[in-house]
């Protein structure tokens, strides 16, 4: 389980990094999206992987903390997902506007 998730993080990171080093703005947008998947998974995995232990309590009373996975990384990732959407939108708009202003979709605003 850990190996699969770690490999996934690695491959997503590699694809993302490859793309953010490319010259076209669209590649950058996709790259950042992939990179944010990787980072979200990474942060999430810092709470260690558990199956069938969602941090949703069953009724009141005393709580056995070992029965649930760590909720903190999940809370962090949850907002990261929404903010990630916002930054993707922002990048996309910057891309469109920069394309409109410079006539080029190169990251530097001009070819070469």
């Amino acid at each position, binding site marked *: 389980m850990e190996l699969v998730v770690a490999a996934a993080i690695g491959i*997503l990171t590699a694809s993302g*990094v490859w793309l953010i080093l490319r010259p076209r703005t*669209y590649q950058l947008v*996709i790259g950042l999206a992939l990179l944010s998947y990787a980072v979200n998974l990474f942060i*999430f995995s810092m709470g260690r992987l558990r199956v069938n232990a969602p*941090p949703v309590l069953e009724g009141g009373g005393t709580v056995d903390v070992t029965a649930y996975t760590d909720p903190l990384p999940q809370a962090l990732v949850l907002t990261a997902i929404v903010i990630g959407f916002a930054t993707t939108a922002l990048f996309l708009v910057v891309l469109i506007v920069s394309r409109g202003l410079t006539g080029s979709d190169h990251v530097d605003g001009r070819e070469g």
Partner: protein
Amino acid sequence: MEASDFLPLLVAIPFLGSILALLPSPRARNIEAWLGGSVTLCALLIVVFLYPAVENGDVVKRTIEWVPALGLSVTLRMDGFAWLFSVLITGIGFLVVIYARYYMSPDDPVSRFYALLLAFMGAMLGLVVSGHLIMLAVFWELTSVFSFLLIGYWHHNQAARDGARIALTITGTGGLCLLLGMILLGQMAGSYDLDAVLAAGDIIRSHALYVPTLLLILAGALTKSAQFPFHFWLPNAMAAPTPVSAYLHSATMVKAGVFLLTRFWPVLSGTPEWFTIVGIAGLTTLLLGAYFAIFQQDLKGLLAYSTISHLGLITALLSFGSPLSLVAAIFHMMNHATFKASLFMAAGIIDHETGTRDMRRLSGLFTAMPYTATLAIIASAAMAGVPLLNGFLSKEMFFAQALEEHQRSFLDSSAPYVATLAGAFAVAYSVRFIHNVFFGPKAANLPKQPHEPPALMRRPIELLVIACVIVGVIPGLSVGPFLHTAVVSVLGEQTPTYSLSVWHGFNIPLLMSTIAMVAGFALYWALRNYLRTCEEGPPYFRRLQGQRIFERVLVTVSWRWARAVEGVLATRKLQPQMRLLVLTALLAGVWAMWGTRDVLPALTVHGLDPVLGALWAIGAFCAVSAAYQAKYHRLAALILMSGTGLATCLSFVWLSAPDLAVTQLLVEIVTTVLILLGLRWLPKREEARAAVDQTTRLRRHRDFFLAAGSGLGAAVLAYFTMLTPRPPSVGDFYLEHAYSQGGGTNVVNVILVDFRGFDTMGEIVVLAVVGLTVFALLRRFRPAEDTAETPYQQREQDQFDDLRRDREVGETLKDYLLVPSVIMRWMFPVVVLLAAYLFIRGHDLPGGGFAAGVAMAIGFLLQYLAGGARWVEERLRILPVRWIGSGLLVAVLTGLGSFLFGYPFLTSYFQYTELPFIGKMPTASAMLFDLGVFSLVVGATVLMLIAIAHQSLRVRARPRQADGGQG
């Protein structure tokens, strides 16, 4: 009122006066002088009143706690030494205020002048009565700032601006060093309280950080007191109005450096490092200052170098480290302030009455202004150290101390010779000052006809000169007790016995004085004709100007080096920057992981889940293909990217994170739609089959390795972290208390809206800001020309509709989308219900404001897809900015609500209530906060999507304006 109550008042009065001084009209000289005079007199009276309280080595202290946890407080502390300085500051300040009334021209904006002068006085008083190290450093910097403003008072004058800039750069930098030094000192002593530090001398001197601290504090003190090699700011500061020079640059501010050295003398002095550094600085400054002073042609320049030299004398005295030399140092600080302030004022009168300060043009003024001349002669005699004047006494003490052996070194053995030589120079420039200006042939071609100044302009000088004479004749009776009070407050039990009498019999110091006197006269006589005509500045040193070196250093550091670094590191291209960034991150990661190989657990394939493996085989394939296709096949890349997103989402389901899965799924939908909307504005790119050149291939290889390296690093890091057992986490606390304190069973949601509600608040603000930014950016958007046209398919369809008489434009599109659009329209209530459901259950089960908000946004989005923007907006008024605004408002008001009950911001309250039809439902104030989150997420998401969707409409409305608009 107790004595300590007056201390805050003493510091506050000048600042209040400074504010008041700005009120009258800028040219109201008389009102300003009355105001300034009363303020300074008030302060002076307070100081005088405080004398009995400090007389017997007692200390008046007032502490006002500020941040006790950090050891910060406003501590005012006056002892004998601070008292002496306070007298100088307020007394000479009073005289300068009167003098300035007559010196300043009716055209000068005097309100600014007086305001700055009084503020400076407040800063200086604050500095000397500071009982807290950090406060001392703050007042220290304040004096630098006000000095800067006062030097640059005539800011239309280039020399004034330059002088102000140089002074601020040097003293300001020194002040920063001092602040560091003070922090170190406080750390070593364990307290920033001055008394505690003064008591911790032995600990500090033997501490490992003693030398760095000493260097930092000396950097502050020596720059302020214009010691070599930082002396050159002082002559440049002479561009200031003369009252400023008399006050700041002779009597008070430049004394702050030696004040500081004296203040910390019991703590820092007595070590070889102290003796060497302070001694070399002092003796060099003493000699060079005096030598340079001889060759100045500007009256104030001569006095400035003389000031530098006298400050060097005081510094040298402090370096000796014996109690007797400390007595001499304090005594000379007072004496120098008295005679130098009066000389500056005299120079100002000469400048004022003749229109020039150039000694090549001034001559024979005695007949025109005999009274002023007499005063100046007495003050110069004090400066030269003529017997029966105050300068003589402290100079004799200096000579005596120079003869003593302090630390066996070359410095020690050369001190008496340096002292005598500097004494001779001092006599030479003093004689020159008098002889050159007041005697000789009567000057012709002066800009103004010289005559005596108004009596009140002379009065301050008279008072100071009388003080010089009284102290010089009956030192023991006049200043004796006050000096003793000051000395005792610094030295305590170490106070030596000393005699202030004028006549000590025939001894070596007297011989040195005599030699200096004769040699000085001879030197002047030999040089007098040369000096009448020579260029400004001493021979051989003329070209070696500190100022020029300083400017060159500044240019080198702030311009040339900065440019060089920019040339190496900075590029306007994004790709090299990104590469550098990734490489740095990679190297940092490798560096951190280096050497941890032994402690890592072994790699095992144990427990590999085939389904998860298969899921990620697909996910990884999608990611790599997306990376491969993103250049030429954007739509394919987008679909592949979403595939990866789905794999991520399913992993969250698998790995016990239902909340993340829900949110990820919903966000995936809006992201995809968003990028789909954006695709239309990108240029067509045909896949090139041409061979890539060598450099491109090399670059791709390099990037490939960077990417592979980063991926490998991330994977290794993640893998080994996941295999190590989880240390106790704050998450356990949340699990334990989510229900009992937050009233919810969905711990992730409780963390978001309750425990870490403030963080969430920040996050939704970011979301709102991004939404508005997207909106704002697109308002001014002009698409590139090649994408301004409607797409090929749309044109085709519209053309078809146009040709047929029974069809309207757009009908074909409608027909195509008939079935999906009916479904989408009917879905709207369902989606709204889903959003409400997600929201309500959020506190206890997966869901919550974020997920519900995105779901709701999707509901709106579907309507846009089904009917087009026009159709939707004709029927449904969505005001996303209002959604954002009310969301923020609800969140903030919920947070503020807890203030009403006396709890901190965002404290939540909850209970279970029975609702009809729905049943038992948790109602927590946190849910209200979540409602704010929901509303804001809906608003921001819809705003972004609609803003992009609207572009097509706007372009169609203005078909051919693409090239004329915003550049």
